[in-house]
């Protein structure tokens, strides 16, 4: 059983137009940039992408928005992505905006075989429309359903051939929960190491959740808001 793939192009084989993808990352931090670039090089379109953000205009998922490969975005934040906002307001892009915590928990639920759960987030707002409301401990909650994807694509710091992953810093974010929720999960890593190099006690994503793994050719790791303080 070989999980190791040579590169992004080979690792994304089998992704087809119309499929649902999950993509890890928060802003541009911890996004599977090699896989996204490889997808941008294909004719695959009509994708539903589940990702907290949609990159920026010219990097990350923004690339797939530019090339109109995405039919629907499921995200929590549009933020400063002008093209995302434009396509959304013009109706070119279908968008399902959901609270960030519900997004994370719905992905985890999808991976954990929990079809639905109650959360207080979004009660009394547009998010609750059409959803079951129930009171627990005197407080209204709404029923949210699990999210899964045909392919989940995550980015990790290190990984081994078993698919075990560790992440670095806040580049972890949505990656572990999305890794759980893909029918097929692709992990791109900065460094592919030998089994035994990752301490089992500190593996973030156990290999059982990962079907394909490859070492990314190049990581630009662009910074969205470079903020520094003066040396005094």
């Amino acid at each position: 059983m070989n999980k190791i793939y040579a590169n992004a192009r080979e690792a994304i084989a089998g992704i087809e137009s119309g499929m649902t993808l999950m993509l890890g990352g928060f802003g541009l931090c911890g996004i599977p940039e090699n896989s996204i670039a490889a997808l941008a090089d294909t004719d695959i379109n009509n994708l539903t992408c589940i990702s907290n953000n949609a990159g920026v205009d010219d990097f990350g998922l923004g690339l797939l928005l530019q090339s109109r490969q995405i039919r629907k975005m499921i995200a929590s934040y549009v933020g400063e992505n002008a093209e995302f906002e434009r396509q959304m307001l013009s109706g070119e892009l279908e968008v399902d905006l959901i609270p960030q915590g519900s997004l994370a928990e719905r992905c985890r639920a999808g991976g954990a075989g929990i079809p639905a759960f109650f959360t207080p987030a979004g009660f009394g707002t547009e998010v609750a429309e059409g959803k079951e409301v129930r009171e627990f401990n005197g407080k209204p909650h709404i029923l949210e359903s699990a999210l899964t994807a045909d392919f989940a694509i995550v980015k990790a710091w290190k990984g081994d051939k078993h698919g075990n992953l560790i992440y670095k810093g806040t580049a972890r974010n949505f990656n572990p929960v999305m890794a759980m929720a893909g029918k097929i999960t692709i992990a791109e890593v900065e460094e592919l190491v030998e089994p035994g190099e990752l301490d089992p006690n500190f593996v973030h994503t156990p290999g059982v959740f990962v079907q394909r793994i490859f070492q990314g050719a190049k990581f630009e790791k662009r910074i969205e808001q470079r903020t520094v303080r003066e040396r005094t």
Partner: protein
Amino acid sequence: MLNRDQIAQRIAQEVQDGWYVNLGIGIPTLVANYVRDDISVEFQSENGILGMGPFPFDGEEDADLINAGKQTITALPGAAIFDSATSFAMIRGRHIQLTVLGAMEVAQNGDIANWKIPGKLVKGMGGAMDLVASADNIIVAMNHTNRKGDSKILEQCTLPLTGVGCVKKVVTNMAVLEVLGDGFRLLERAPGVSVEDIQKATAGRLVVKGDIPEIIL
């Protein structure tokens, strides 16, 4: 009138020893700069870090270490990193003692709107809906009026809501207000701002009782 930093400075006075605090994007982020250094407070950022430190020195930025505003940050000794589900487990599970966030509108029943202007602007709710639905202690940091001069302190919100009946306190460039449910109680006024000025800039019901002290920074 208070500037952005002064609003943050006033909010920092609310922070107590041992608290875990989530700061939203914008003015709230500045609150960290003004917390007394004789108390121990930990800042949580919902993208997955507890024990957030100051911005890095020039040249020491790490693309893999950012806050929820996507700004490069540092981690203090004793920090912890976690995934998004665990981060919101902290938030939804009420392990965070204070949430500070910005708003487009706040209503006197505690409703808040801060993510969308139909047909015009969509920022998305990010983590705000989870935060306001679960936090026991929510302070809104914002200007009292919008760019057109209209009050953001309302009887009822007009924009799509982020959360219902959740805001406890509002600190603006003009005043500190307590949300009563059927009005805003004026607690303090910015230096040089009169009760009448605040009354004029407030569309919701303003409750003024006794002398209103100036904000002391």
